[in-house]
């Protein structure tokens, strides 16, 4: 049916469109005009923007440290922002590229060499007074310096160390007729204990692993290679040491612990517990492990979620002829971004947190979350000693801390890539799909390819 064009309706429609357009534009303008950040608590002070990766209960501790700092002086205000770890790197890099980075970025990821190489973070040496430099280089735990240093320059101050030790369910040990008061002192002994603590169901499926390093949370090869006298990097010569007899022995040992139980059996067992490793659901708490290896933060979590759990901790025992107190260690560390607007304030806050300027005061921060301090004098401060006396299971970790055989990730510019490839080959060996020697050969080959690529593209190594 023919309908004549209605000019009146058309004009009304146009007016309505214009009205909607104006409302939309006005809404955007109002949104842009509104304050984009929370109001400052100390607007007269110079801000120090700090990004950190902690969430949930750990964030509360960081907020407490920040509040203590803000109350301790009247020059700066730390504004802390929790940026979850898996997105932190991309957000931080975008902020640096965009010219609006935070002053301090705290991380635990494999970032220091690459960021240092790219000039994304500042060397801290130049910010320190001679006295501070002396204190940091002479008194920090060796592992703290290894983590923060790249090409002989300090780029990060460790704000908390993570070291690993054995966790033993003493109730299970007693049930198995083992003397829980005298934990194993050699690796062979540890394996023998593990065999006695293993439990299987009627289908011969593993329901409790007597001894197993959890594949999902700890890179076992990095942990055990130093104990066998190896490791991925020679700090004296400054070279990678990937495919060595010591590393092969370590990897063969770890593969052997799984082969004994049946690779597939272990894969099923570990996969069944891989999704719930945090807090109260940690499989050690739920009874899935007799002995396992994990970091010191579990002590605090057990105290919180399972205070009556019967357990103990002890350093990872070395193999015959191996090294005691050797293994992998990591940590969280503070860096100052290239383009930071308040470098002086950033350094002052890092000094405050890590206890460079006042160990006794900072020692208290480390008791709030059961963190391991980067300097021995914090560990010896009254507040921390009192904390350890109340939590004697911390001692196993503190005993390991001064060891020169603790190794972090190798300080090479392709650290993240190398770590991923080590993890992939290690996982394949632990699943029985790659022989230990083939796994190490693959890591070496992939590393060589990456180094060649970097050379071809003109990266400095």
């Amino acid at each position: 049916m023919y309908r004549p064009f209605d000019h009146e309706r058309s004009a009304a429609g146009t007016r309505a469109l214009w009205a909607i357009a104006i409302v939309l534009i006005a809404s955007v303008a109002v949104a842009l005009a509104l304050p984009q950040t929370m109001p400052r608590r100390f607007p007269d002070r110079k801000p120090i923007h700090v990004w950190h990766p902690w969430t949930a209960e750990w964030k509360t501790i960081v907020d407490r440290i920040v509040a203590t700092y803000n109350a301790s002086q009247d020059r700066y205000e730390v504004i802390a922002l929790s940026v979850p770890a898996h997105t932190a790197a991309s957000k931080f890099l975008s902020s640096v590229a965009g010219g609006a980075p935070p002053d301090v970025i705290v991380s635990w990821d494999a970032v220091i060499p690459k960021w240092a190489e790219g000039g994304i973070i500042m060397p801290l040496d130049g910010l320190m007074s001679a006295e501070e430099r002396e204190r940091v280089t002479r008194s920090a735990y060796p592992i703290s310096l290894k983590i923060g240093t790249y090409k002989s320059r300090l780029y990060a101050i460790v704000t908390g160390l993570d070291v690993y030790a054995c966790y033993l369910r003493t109730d299970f040990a007693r049930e198995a007729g083992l003397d829980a008061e005298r934990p194993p002192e050699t690796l062979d002994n540890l394996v023998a204990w593990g065999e006695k603590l293993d439990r299987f169901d009627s289908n011969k499926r593993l329901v409790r692993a007597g001894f197993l390093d959890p594949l999902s949370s700890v890179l076992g090869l990095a942990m055990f290679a130093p104990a066998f006298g190896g490791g991925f990097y020679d700090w004296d010569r400054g070279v990678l040491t990937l495919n060595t007899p010591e590393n092969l022995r370590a990897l063969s040992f770890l593969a052997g612990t799984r082969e004994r139980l049946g690779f597939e059996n272990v894969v099923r067992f570990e996969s069944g517990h891989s999704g719930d490793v945090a807090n109260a659901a940690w499989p050690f708490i739920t009874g899935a492990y007799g002995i396992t290896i994990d970091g010191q933060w579990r002590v605090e979590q057990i105290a919180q979620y399972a205070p009556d759990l019967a357990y103990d901790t002890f350093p990872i025992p070395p193999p015959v002829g191996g090294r005691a107190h050797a293994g992998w260690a990591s940590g969280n560390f503070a860096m100052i971004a290239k383009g930071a607007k308040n470098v002086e304030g950033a350094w002052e806050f890092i000094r405050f947190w890590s206890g460079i300027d006042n160990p006794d005061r900072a020692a208290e921060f480390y008791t709030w979350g059961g963190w391991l301090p980067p300097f021995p004098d914090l560990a010896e401060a009254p507040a921390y000693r009192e904390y350890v006396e109340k939590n004697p299971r911390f001692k196993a970790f503190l005993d390991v801390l001064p060891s020169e055989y603790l190794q972090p990730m190798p300080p090479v510019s392709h650290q993240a890539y190398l770590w991923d490839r080590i993890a992939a080959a290690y996982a394949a060996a632990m699943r029985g799909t790659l022989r230990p020697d083939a796994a190490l050969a693959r890591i070496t080959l992939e590393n060589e390819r990456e180094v060649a690529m970097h050379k071809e593209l003109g990266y400095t190594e």
Partner: protein
Amino acid sequence: MKRGWAGYAFIGPWLAGFATFTAFPFAASIWLSFTRYDIVSDPVWVGAANYNRLLTEDPIFWKSLFITVKYALVAVPLSMVVGVALALLLNLEIAGIAIYRTLFFIPSIVPVVATSVLFIWLLNPQTGLVNGVLSEFGVAGPAWLADKRWAFTSLVFMSLWGVGGSMVIYLAGLKDIPLALYEAAIIDGAGAWQRTRHITLPMLTPVIFFNLMMGIIGSFQYFTQAYIVTQGGPDDSTNFYALYLFNRAWRYLDMGYASAMAWILFAIVMTMTIAVFRSHRRWVHYEN
């Protein structure tokens, strides 16, 4: 003229956003793919080195490409078959059909991250629902996401969770088929299978064509589920192209290399799109 300006005022914000966040980065990434670039430092021209290394010296690149192509070859046809089958079933005029349609569509609007976490639980070999059901039938289910032989397959099955989105499009296509064709076929003595084979499927081919295109493009961009559920493991068995590209860009800071990967991906997707477009005259039937 005045009316034209009103139109431009409306699309202006989108145009500005498109130019800033899509067109410019798109063009810039061509240049970046010939450079060494870590986001913060200035890009340094390296010629075709990124492409050369990718194509000749990077087995992980080829492996990730193979995994992605395999996924496209398996998941796209599978989701099409399941989507069409579901749409045919949900096209039946039975009581409560609207509820069934809603139930099958709802999963596709659940955020991918939530779906991924859900499947981590469902596929848990010890406490997961899937192995729980299998054990009722005496079948010992595998370690779905941790076993190299099953992780990829698990992700393929996971993709069916979102099949409701394409199912709705198939359903709309089915509703668009003229009833007269079926009436004529019935008069001619055609059975149910013959009607499906010779009327429904041919008349549905424009919709199948659309979903095929979208499926291929989506498969080559497959990322989120692999990132959350398997992180590329075990032993690289789910290291999809987009995941490797992401790691190269944001984890290893090789933005130039990642840009080269993105352009190779673009070339592959474009080639496949053109190939499918060229083939469509042979198998896509339009009513007119």
